[in-house]
């Protein structure tokens, strides 16, 4: 056991990056008060296919971060849980990673690396479950021509705190698709960030979240178009139900002067299913060159559409079932992108349960 180092600038809540986050509920991850437990919970419980390895290694960070929690993680430990997919390896089946031994009394500071060699193709699923306090510096390195579908499932139990950065570094002609699902935990704060380091890359950042009474879920995107001819798409959908359910979606997209030929679009849609919930949605597009293919954003926050409910009910469907259909329908577009039926069904059932629990 060791205490977190304290020589970092502790956020006060006034900083742009922290203005929404309930710092008091972070269990000391941000200010060094957390007692760090000695655990590395990320596990692979299935045998890995040829060309894939998963081991603990001492690795330097891939990319800079100015997030204080990430800095604290890096200050403590050089050990990284490293999932590596060798060059030219095409893995057909999804690679599943899960969590063991969580705890609420102590915090885990986790560093994870997923790296794909040139032209490697894989789907990686990380299932985050249990009750835990977890800060995570997750970096993803995509070598030229590689393609990764990264599915990250926040299905934590009620008291968990998860603060993480999921940072992808996308090399020439590589493709990165992430599906970020957040349905469980007390406080979840994820920074899905992307940095293009050579032209021709493309990313799709998809996400769904469903916050019920008292839950706080924040997704703070940052896509850095620092090279020409890269493409990015962001589409996050969230639902909220119950008192003090609070979600935050920040979509920072930066198109630098050098990034000619950029093509980007970001979208966030929220469904407010009851009073007393709050969805913050802040798209933010910074464009430093006019020589682009396209750049746009949209953000909507709405309630149940009475016309949809009426139409369904006029066919005999009860209000409760009509709501369930509409909410499932709302999330369907993104959930089906997961492409793994067992996970899709589990999530849809979870969504049904959340809705029922909220009793809107």
């Amino acid at each position: 056991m060791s205490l977190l180092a304290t020589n970092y600038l502790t956020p006060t809540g006034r900083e742009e990056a922290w203005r929404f986050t309930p710092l008091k509920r972070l269990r000391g991850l941000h200010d060094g008060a957390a007692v760090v437990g000695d655990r590395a919970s990320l596990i692979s419980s299935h045998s890995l296919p040829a060309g894939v390895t998963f081991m603990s290694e001492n690795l330097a960070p891939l990319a800079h971060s100015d997030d204080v929690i990430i800095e604290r993680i890096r200050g403590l430990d050089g050990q990284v849980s490293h999932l590596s997919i060798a060059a030219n390896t095409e893995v057909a089946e999804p690679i599943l990673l899960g969590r063991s031994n969580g705890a609420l009394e102590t915090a885990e500071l986790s560093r994870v690396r997923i790296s794909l060699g040139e032209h490697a193709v894989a789907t990686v699923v990380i299932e985050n479950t249990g009750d835990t306090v977890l800060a995570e510096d997750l970096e993803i390195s995509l070598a030229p021509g590689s393609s990764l579908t990264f599915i990250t499932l926040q299905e934590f139990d009620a008291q968990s705190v998860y603060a993480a950065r999921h940072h992808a570094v996308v090399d020439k002609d590589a493709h990165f698709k992430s599906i970020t699902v957040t349905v469980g935990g007390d406080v979840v704060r994820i920074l899905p960030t992307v940095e293009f380091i050579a032209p021709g890359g493309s990313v799709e950042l998809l996400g769904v979240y469903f916050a019920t009474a008292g839950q706080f879920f924040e997704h703070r995107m940052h896509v850095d178009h620092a090279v020409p001819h890269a493409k990015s798409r962001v589409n996050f959908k969230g639902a909220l139900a119950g008192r003090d359910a609070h979600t935050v979606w920040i979509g920072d997209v930066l198109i630098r002067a050098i990034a000619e030929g950029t093509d980007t679009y970001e979208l966030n849609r929220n469904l407010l299913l009851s009073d007393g919930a709050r969805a913050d949605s802040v798209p933010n597009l910074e464009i430093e060159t006019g020589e682009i293919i396209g750049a746009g954003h949209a953000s909507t926050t709405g309630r149940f559409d009475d016309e949809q409910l009426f139409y369904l009910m006029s066919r005999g469907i009860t209000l409760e079932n009509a709501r369930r259909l509409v909410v499932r329908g709302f999330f369907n577009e993104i959930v089906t992108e997961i492409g793994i039926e067992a996970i899709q069904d589990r999530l849809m059932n979870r969504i049904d349960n959340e809705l029922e629990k909220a009793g809107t």
Partner: protein
Amino acid sequence: MSRLEIRNLQVSVKTDAGAVEILKGVDLTIETGETHAIMGPNGSGKSTLAYSIAGHPKYTIVGGSVTLDGADVLDMTVDERAKAGLFLAMQYPVEVPGVSVSNFLRTAATALRGEAPKLRTWVAEVKDAMEALNIDPAFASRNVNEGFSGGEKKRHEIMQLELLKPKIAILDETDSGLDVDALRIVSEGINRAKANGNLGVLLITHYTRILKYIKPDFVHVFANGHIVEEGGPDLADKLEANGYADYVSK
């Protein structure tokens, strides 16, 4: 035999400027086996009548009654009205994103029949219903009404009529937006639904051409929030020739 009785129905809508009365005392009785046509100028309240019977939350019942075989329809929730045997084919069917036609139909049939239809017979039933209305099977996996053309939406409404088998169907301008072939196909669907069961039809329309396929027993002229004249099929021809000038001042 079922009977829908509308008595002195008065309905208003909430607007920014307060409640506006739209239906000013509608009286109408429809029995299974009968076909009633309602014709009337734009804005006279035909859709308001249809929606009020189906229970759309936008409308406030100010007075009067609607009963189906004696049961108080106005006291029922929207889904209860459907379960009681009412069906509304909407003038503007609603898009429901992310909900597939097949999922929607099965959920509706399950609700109305009280149990999930047996999968094998159900698949065949839907396939037949789609074929009969010339609907591409690919529509089963599309989202409800999403991106459907106007005519496709109307055919989808009548397919539901055939699958859900109500006692009384209100068809709000189902013929609008249909090409000549679709008009015939849809009319045949309505006639089939009538032939296959005990169905009463309230057909709201602006055109006599659908009445060539679907013979009304009664024609009602609707103006300014109520029925101003009633007659047989020949009344429709008179309206087509003369318009509503005689009625709008009433």
